[in-house]
């Protein structure tokens, strides 16, 4: 619990929250639903040479140029299989829109702080900094993503 309180997001600290969930490399992740602006099918992505590896490129969101971040890369997962298109989740933080590339979108889930547990001590590397902890749902763990850190790249 200490992790959750010392890091961001007041919603996680106590009571209930709503998380928009998505699949990434067979894991279920969630971000606070109020950060999510919209979800898009795969988009044309313009590569940005010399950008940090997690930056997949730029997409045109109705005339606004939005950076797309490859969450697989960010979380140290293997690249998506050839020929499968990512789903784009547009989040709005501090007034700026940023998009996250994930495998598939899932439901909006009500979670309770009672079910929350900080990440296991064995969790290492990049993922440790970005995963706030896990909600123990029935038969599935829901990993809470620290979206502010994720888009900070």
């Amino acid at each position, binding site marked *: 619990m200490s992790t959750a309180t010392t890091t961001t997001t007041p919603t996680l600290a106590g009571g209930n929250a709503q998380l928009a969930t998505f699949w990434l490399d067979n894991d279920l992740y969630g971000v606070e639903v109020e950060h999510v602006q919209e979800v898009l099918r795969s988009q*044309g992505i*313009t*590569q*940005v*040479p*010399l*950008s*940090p590896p997690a*930056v997949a*490129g*730029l*997409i*045109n969101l*109705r*005339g*606004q*140029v*939005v*950076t797309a*971040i490859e969450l697989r890369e960010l979380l140290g997962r293997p690249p998506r299989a050839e020929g499968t298109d990512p789903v784009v989740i547009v989040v709005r933080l501090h007034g*700026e829109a*940023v998009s996250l590339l994930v495998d598939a979108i899932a439901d909006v889930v009500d979670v309770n702080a009672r079910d929350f547990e900080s990440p296991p001590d064995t969790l290492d590397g990049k993922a440790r900094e970005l995963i706030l902890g896990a909600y123990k749902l029935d038969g599935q763990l829901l990993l809470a993503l620290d979206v502010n850190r994720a*888009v*900070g*790249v």
Partner: protein
Amino acid sequence: MDGLDDIVGEFLVESHENLDQLDRDLVALEQEPNSRERMSSIFRTIHTIKGTSGFLAFNRLEEVTHVGENMLSKMRDGVLELTPFRTDVLLRMVDCVRSLLAAIEADGTEGSVDVSEVVAAISAALEDRAPAASSVATLAPAAPVAPAAPAVEELHDEDNDDEHDEDHDDHEDDAAHAPGPVAAAPAAPPAVPTEPAAQPAAAAAAPKLEPEPGTGPQKGRGIADSTIRVDVDLLDALMQLVGELVLTRNQIVQYASQETGTDLVRASQRLNLIASELQEGVMRTRMQPIDHIWSKLPRVVRDLGQQVGKSVRLEMEGKETELDKTLLEAVKDPLTHLVRNSVDHGIEKAEVRLAAGKPSDGVLSLRARHESGQVVVEISDDGAGMDPARIGAKAVERGLITAEQMARMSTQDILQLTFLPGFSTAAAVTNVSGRGVGMDVVKTNIEAIGGTIEVESVVGKGTSTRLRIPLTLAIMPALTIECAGERYAIPQVSLQELVALDAEKAAAAVEEVGGAPVYRLRGELLPLVQLADVFGLTSDRHDGHLVIAVLRSEGRRFGLVVDRVINTEEIVVKAVGGQLKAVGLYSGATILGDGAVALILDVQALSRRAMRPEAAERQEARAAAAAASLNASVAERQRMLLAAIGGGRQVAIPLDTVTRLEQVKSATVERIGSREVVQYRGAILPIVRLDRHLGAYGESEREVLEVVVYADHGRSVAIVVEEILDIVDGEAAVHSDIDDMGLLGAAVFGDKVTELLDVRAAILAADPMFFTAIHDASLGVPSGLLEV
């Protein structure tokens, strides 16, 4: 608003806003009488109105606000306490000021609004215990209220009772609606005798306060209602959206043109018109008159003039010329610098001027106007001017050019040397030439916003600096290129020329200096930078062709090797997210016609990354020399553009008269009278067909016309040729004097006889007014054209 000049209009808008604030402040002040902040705010408002009304000669307004200010200042200093009665009087003053403003707005005069009553009331409240019966008596119907009210005040003061004050507070809520009657009302219970007097006073006051709400509806929107304040961010967002709309419209119009269904075509034409108007409208919302930055200059000129002991008269013309707010900010400093320069160094001291037969007062004039999609700002003084001989000598001394080069340079070119960084760092130069410090900074700043700067000067007569600034930054012309499968945009400002080499030539033309690839561009070694290498990508051009974009940034020139050139187009600049700022190679992004995102290359950052820093200085010096020699050597060697004109004939056109090479679809050629024109970059471009002009008859109807564009002083003409053949060094050795119409002679280029085009005649055939529009003939066509 008609009949009012701008100052009065602005004053009214501002005052209306301030008065609304004042109402709130006054009422709030009663709740917290000790708030110095509110007190000061009220004082400032009245002070401002007083000051401006005095300046604008609205005497009654000044009179009212003056007494109000007196009272407020005493309250602010704690000499007077704020009592409900005083609040009341102040609110009446506010209403009176409103009536006056309404009258001013109606016909520009203070009308018949009577202020004496309010003035008396305030004076009475100010003097506190002195009803001044005698003076009041002369004030006819309004009089009774004045003595009555202070009488009440006395009672209150004696009681000095908080509960009474609270009583008043309750009443004050009503006071906002009808200050007149309520003013007297609280007086009623404690001071019975005054009541009858108070009533008529209220009645008398009421009509005076009525007209204000009454006048509004009669004349439509009042001045305060016709403007609103809008957040600049909101305008930026609108501007972005409109930019998108324009791009989308372009796509739709393009699709529609392939359709035969007339309804779609008609609808797309309507969309086209509406989008254009909308774009114009939104752009106008961001426009501000240049006066916003000019208005500070009279003071600058005066202060500096006094400091250096010169008397300078500042003349301004075209104050109302509008440009984008962001650009206005960007131009402010360079402009101030130029003005300071003129006063400091340009204009001579009075005794020197008199000795030179000039009036003792110097004249500095600022002129602004719109000209072919740009704003032109001129700063001219009638000072000593700059002496090219001394500037040249100094430039030689600084090693910027050689004496030989200087000897061949035109006066114009020598003057431009003052913009070189190496030149202006020499403090001594300013004493000699009178100009220099910071001129390179001015130039850099102006160029950073896509503008240009040029200077003209006549010794003894004065100096004139001309800035050309784009109307807006949000949209800029750019070259789109492709590299390793992605498209990028390069701002047109940094682009000097494009060089395309086929595989055979490329293999021979690219040489190496210690491993660094270079290309000989007209005899100068141009360092080459592979964009794909900078990006760490692999170029997907494998056929050996080479496309070089010659770019210039901060005095360095380099050739950027790209895979292919796509187009030149107007792009809408968009910010990129913070994650990419660290890369540092992109100044933003844009959305292309097909909806894809393209990055805008930051040419400065690119050159900094690709080139060693010390190379820049060396190159700068050489570039200056090259620029000098290029202009100077016209007589001996000249770069020539060879073009076929049909019938097997070819002509040579001096390259320095060529601004751009373009292709134009025949279908887009329109007619004005007997002349052919084509729309080009938002202007009408007259064209001359060289084959007809010179009596050669090639294939007459081709789909795409090859066009040589020549532009000078904002005018352009297009010369149509059959085919662009080559660019060669003109050795004017082999001349023959074939004196045919439109030709200057002939020479042999390669092994073919080539006619030398009389460019001036060709241009005149397209646009007879071309040269007459240029006041100073020496600035028109370089004389070199005529002596090939």
